[in-house]
């Protein structure tokens, strides 16, 4: 059974609409992350969290908000979606290792903004 689950798997949104991507983890990890994956760019960090109630900006936070209401759940929110946010989004939990944290990824959400 998958330890990091993302929903929905696919999403089509209209420009200017609100989009919420959800992530649930059963690893009991404190750290959680949202990345987007675009061809040629690898994965880029949008937001992350150290635990319930905490959110931090990553490398490309503009146009995105995050919410961590509980240890298990971490959401990514696009208040006003734009076509440039069309991408594949990955959520991950991190084991917080003192040396070299390992990330555990969900299967991704493919978002298309028309």
């Amino acid at each position, binding site marked *: 059974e998958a330890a990091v689950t993302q929903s929905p798997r696919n999403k089509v949104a209209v420009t200017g609409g609100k989009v919420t991507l959800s992530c649930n983890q059963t690893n009991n990890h404190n750290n959680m992350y949202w990345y987007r994956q675009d061809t*040629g760019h*690898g*994965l880029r960090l949008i937001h992350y969290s150290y635990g319930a109630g905490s959110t931090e900006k990553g490398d490309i936070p503009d146009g995105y908000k995050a919410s961590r209401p509980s240890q298990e759940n971490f959401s990514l929110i696009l208040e006003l979606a734009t076509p440039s946010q069309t991408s594949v989004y*990955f959520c991950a939990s991190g084991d917080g290792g003192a*040396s*070299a944290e390992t990330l555990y990824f969900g299967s991704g959400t493919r978002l298309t903004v028309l």
Partner: protein
Amino acid sequence: AQSVTQPDARVTVSEGASLQLRCKYSSSVTPYLFWYVQYPRQGLQLLLKYYSGDPVVQGVNGFEAEFSKSNSSFHLRKASVHWSDSAVYFCAVSNNAGAKLTFGGGTRLTVRP
């Protein structure tokens, strides 16, 4: 600041051949280095990581990587590839100063039967 470059966007090899995927990193402090693999329609999975000690690290499924401080590299190797190794491989770097992972652009590996 830290960065990762994977100079080969696509690599094609025949089944049974040896493999090297290249990774060059830049980090102002001691790097932690990772290789992740992404199989079709899946999230990334850790193959191996290096943070200290022996510069050659072993990973899953016969993969290994070698850290070279002088060359700022962390190349991934496998002695004999299988068709099931076809995937996208990502090199990533973080550091002991708490920086989050920075990923390279990925290398798409195709193994011909």
